[in-house]
């Protein structure tokens, strides 16, 4: 048999029908649904008299619009947000899909609760009307974002019309230095490939530095595959993966568990498997990084200076100038001199327990700089609970952070958590696009530890100096 990549194996195991032109119907094992990209899809079903084909494989949760303040059960003030959450509530109940409403402790960001509840397992195909579905690739599952028309297609048929992508391999060799985390790796990779470098590919991340990451770290890596243009990122499952999955509410047990693990152990890229593109970075060469511009590819080590537009070529010259103007940065300024106004720790990139531990470790016994907006938004109700039990919540609160309820929050500010114009934010989210965290707001992406360091000093900071 010809050697296969991990992607090839999962793909082949899910083709329900193949057309003459190579177009496939890919069977979908898990369909995650949130309130923003689903109302038009459910409406489409209703209008055509169709049902959800596999409601037991469809998991719905409101996350983008929900307030994260403690009084949120009183209801949502913004009328449009409220209508959208109510629409999900109605659709989930009417079509009988698995549902975690706002008042359920298990509610949270869709990409955090899928793994947490054991819906996400190795070898699966997983889709969601959300580009950061790539997150679930950390389990060796083929997971990617889809549009609303496709959401409707999956609801109705449990399949997706797909053409196969190409294979790309991103290898991170060796060990990470002190202060360097999964977020730094994934940002460094995008800095290397550019935001279009992965377009048309599924990326498999491998190498010693990846293998030694926890599941939380691996999810951070795959989460941002889409920022590199790849629809999906993958990491082959191993003991770390199996340990994470075992005992989760929807993971198999007993005999089924053993059978599953036996199969999952076959999920890796064969020795001579063909990759269309390979990129290798040395773990030792990666420094704690931040973004300076308005594209996730605008990545620099924290020790660098703000670049000038003329440092770039082609279309990037204009884009860089536009970014610098938008971000209000002067070329030549050391990044560590850039003062910030806000800190956001959360999102599906970095809202898991390990992220909160890393941030708490830095802020412990210290204070957030006066006048900063600083909030920690756990990725799920259960992450929040665990952080409270571990004493992390107390550390954050004593340092001066707001301690919020779970949701997407200031990652994109569809709920009231938004930044004003020109407000500069150290953020653990995944996109620094213009207006992402509020119209005119300025986002610097970084790891939780780096964001925590920035909160303490009030500037972009090299976390290594606080360790």
């Amino acid at each position, binding site marked *: 048999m010809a050697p296969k990549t991990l992607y090839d194996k999962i793909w082949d195991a899910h083709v*329900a*029908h193949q057309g003459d*032109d190579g*177009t496939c*119907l890919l*069977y979908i094992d898990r369909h995650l649904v949130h309130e*923003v*990209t689903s*109302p*038009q899809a459910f*409406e489409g079903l209703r209008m*055509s008299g*169709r049902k959800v084909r596999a409601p037991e494989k469809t998991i719905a949760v409101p996350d*983008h*619009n929900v307030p994260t303040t403690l009084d949120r059960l009183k209801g949502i003030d*913004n009328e*449009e*947000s409220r*209508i959208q959450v109510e*629409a999900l509530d109605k659709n989930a109940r009417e079509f009988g899909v698995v549902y975690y409403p706002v008042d359920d402790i298990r509610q949270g960001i869709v990409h955090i609760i899928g793994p947490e509840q054991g819906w996400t397992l190795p*070898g*699966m195909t997983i889709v969601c*009307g959300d580009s950061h579905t790539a997150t679930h690739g950390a389990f060796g599952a083929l997971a*990617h974002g*889809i*549009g*609303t*028309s*496709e959401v*409707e*297609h999956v609801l*109705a*048929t*449990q*399949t997706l*019309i797909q053409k196969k*992508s190409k294979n790309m391999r991103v290898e991170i060799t060796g060990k990470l230095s002190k202060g360097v985390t999964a977020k730094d790796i994934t940002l460094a990779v995008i800095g290397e490939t550019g*935001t*279009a470098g992965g*377009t*048309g590919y599924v990326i498999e991340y491998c190498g010693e530095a990846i293998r030694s990451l926890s599941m939380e770290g691996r999810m951070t890596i795959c989460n941002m595959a889409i920022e590199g*243009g790849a*629809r999906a990122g993958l990491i082959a499952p191993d003991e770390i993966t199996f340990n994470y999955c075992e005992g989760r509410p929807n993971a198999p047990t007993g005999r*089924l*568990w053993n*059978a599953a693990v036996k*199969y999952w152990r076959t999920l890796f890229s064969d020795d001579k498997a063909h990759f269309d593109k390979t990129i290798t970075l040395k773990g030792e060469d990666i420094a704690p990084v931040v973004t300076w511009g308005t594209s996730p590819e605008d990545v620099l080590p924290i020790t660098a200076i703000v670049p000038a537009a003329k440092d770039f070529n082609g*279309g990037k010259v*204009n*884009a860089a100038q536009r970014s610098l103007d938008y971000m209000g940065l002067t070329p030549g300024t050391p990044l560590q001199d850039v003062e910030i106004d806000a800190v956001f720790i959360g999102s599906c990139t970095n809202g898991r327990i390990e992220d909160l531990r890393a941030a708490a470790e830095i802020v412990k016994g210290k204070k957030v700089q006066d006048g900063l907006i600083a909030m920690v938004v756990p990725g799920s109700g259960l992450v929040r609970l665990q952080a409270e039990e571990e004493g992390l919540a107390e550390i954050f609160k004593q340092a001066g952070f707001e301690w919020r309820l779970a949701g997407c929050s200031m990652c994109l*500010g*569809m709920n009231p958590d938004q930044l004003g*114009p020109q407000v500069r934010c150290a953020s653990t989210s995944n*996109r620094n*696009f*213009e*207006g*992402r965290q509020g*119209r*005119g707001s300025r986002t610097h992406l970084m790891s939780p530890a780096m964001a925590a360091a920035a909160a303490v000093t009030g500037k972009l900071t090299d976390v290594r100096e606080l360790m």
Partner: protein
Amino acid sequence: MEKFEKMTAIAAPMPLINIDTDMIIPKQFLKTIKRSGLGVSAFHEMRYHMDGTENPEFVLNQDAYRNANILVAGDNFGCGSSREHAPWALLDFGVRCVISTSFADIFYNNCFKNGILPVIVTDEELNLLMQDAEKGSNARMVIDLESQLIKTSDGQIINFDVDQHRKHCLINGLDDIGLTMEKVASIDMFEKQMATNAPWV
């Protein structure tokens, strides 16, 4: 879905790379539960000042381009969020065709599902089309999907590639779900096999 046949229309130049879906339709407009009505909000932050008045510098606010049905844009158009609101907003504005040197995957896909034709051209071809688009409203481009060609206002021809299945669906206005439903027997069979091979799923 509306059929896409041949169109002769005004093309607006947007020579910026990495135009992301947050730019095409910012988040505050994602709260709708409908598909229509997003056209006035397309490119909102570039198109309007903070006080809601139009920014005259933005191309679609210039008289020559208010009725543009084609966009000619820089590389990596549609990157970022998977929101289908982006093609809905373009469509509602009247855009039926976007031309660029490359598109982000999900956006590219979403276009076809909504009757918008994304066309990929080379750098040189994009330069040529950009110059043509800059001529304003008297310069109309022809997009002929059947023959897979673009004709500039001065008669130059550029051929393009398109997936044949997608072309077929676009030309005939076919809905994917209906087509897939015809293959329901394959899906049933697949589910049966899965129940034996991977009962834990």
